[in-house]
């Protein structure tokens, strides 16, 4: 049974808006919208893959996310005032992303210009591992690199992205992936 956030069981209220929800209810609803985004994306991928094959679905996925990640970055910049040219801005974007709360991540900001992010739990990777078709090679390696590069270069075109650890995992206790974002200002 899902937790009830608001009791709209009474009469229809023509002036209803989401401002009626408690702060906790709004946070919970935001998390639900994040799950909605993940499901929508996943259903599109699978539906197209079943009709046209994985190569076509992957090509569409890449195209879609190259555009959508820019939209997400603009939300972070304009609505949350996340600006700058350093790894701090990227760390903040991870925290603010609708995707972030679904993962168990460690954000290790080693310095203003050096960020290491570790995904300890990732529902997408778990689903891909369960499916067993090896699709994590493309999604977690090729696509993730493209998306992270977009994020990094939105803030600083000189920022480097390095995959420190990628799937496949050695076992269920292994981390999902680990990435490094770094700006070298000594050049």
């Amino acid at each position, binding site marked *: 049974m899902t937790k009830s956030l*608001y009791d*709209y069981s009474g009469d229809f209220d023509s002036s209803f808006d989401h401002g009626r929800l408690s702060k906790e209810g709004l946070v919970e609803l935001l998390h639900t919208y994040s799950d909605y985004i993940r499901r929508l994306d996943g259903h599109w991928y699978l*539906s197209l893959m079943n009709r*046209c094959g994985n190569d076509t679905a992957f090509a569409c996925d890449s195209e879609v996310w190259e555009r959508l990640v820019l939209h997400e970055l603009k939300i972070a910049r304009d*609505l949350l005032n*996340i600006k700058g040219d350093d790894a701090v801005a990227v760390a903040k974007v991870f925290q603010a992303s609708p995707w972030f709360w679904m993962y168990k991540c460690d954000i290790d900001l080693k310095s203003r210009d050096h960020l290491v992010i570790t995904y300890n739990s990732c529902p997408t990777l778990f689903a891909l591992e369960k499916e067993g078709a090896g699709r994590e090679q493309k999604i977690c390696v090729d696509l993730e690199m493209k998306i992270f590069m977009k994020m990094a270069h939105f803030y600083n075109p000189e920022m480097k992205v390095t995959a420190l650890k990628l799937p496949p995992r050695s076992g269920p206790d292994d981390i999902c992936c680990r990435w490094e974002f770094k700006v070298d200002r000594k050049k």
Partner: protein
Amino acid sequence: MTKPLYDYSGDFDPSFDYGKISREGLVGLLAANANYIRKLDGHWYLSAMNRCGDDVAYDCDIDVWKRLMKFELKIASEMMNIRGDGVSSIAKYFQVSPWFWTFDYRLELAGSDRLVVTFVKCPTLLALEKEGLGREGRICRELEQDLFETIAHHFNPRIAVVPVQVPPRKEVADFCCKWEFRIEGSK
């Protein structure tokens, strides 16, 4: 220039989460994520259509929304406690759906068994009209009919969905489409 909902321009805060944002800010972020959902769906459709044709994209769209509607209705029923077999449940569902952030719409409840919903402004129709391929014939008539029936029958299998006026628009109308939800057997 968009007004920020939260000022995260300062130092990195390892404990940042949505709970730090004001209620008004959270409502704004919900609206932004609703727009994200619409954009994600639209980009997937267009990308699939450009590679595999409109028929394949349309079939995927049906597939995706058959599944997603169940999730969205579950959110409405369980998280917002919207239940009951009257048409007012549908009106309430429209108010809480993430899609309805993106429309300008009017809800007219006539007693307990008749609801008329008018979509005054619909970004999807405006985009389809601008594209000029006539895709609104299928999306706004067939797909919407199916989706609205799924919504209606979730609350009451006896609710009929009647398109009062749907695209294509022959001339510039002051609204995009109008639908009626009526409990069968009522006058």
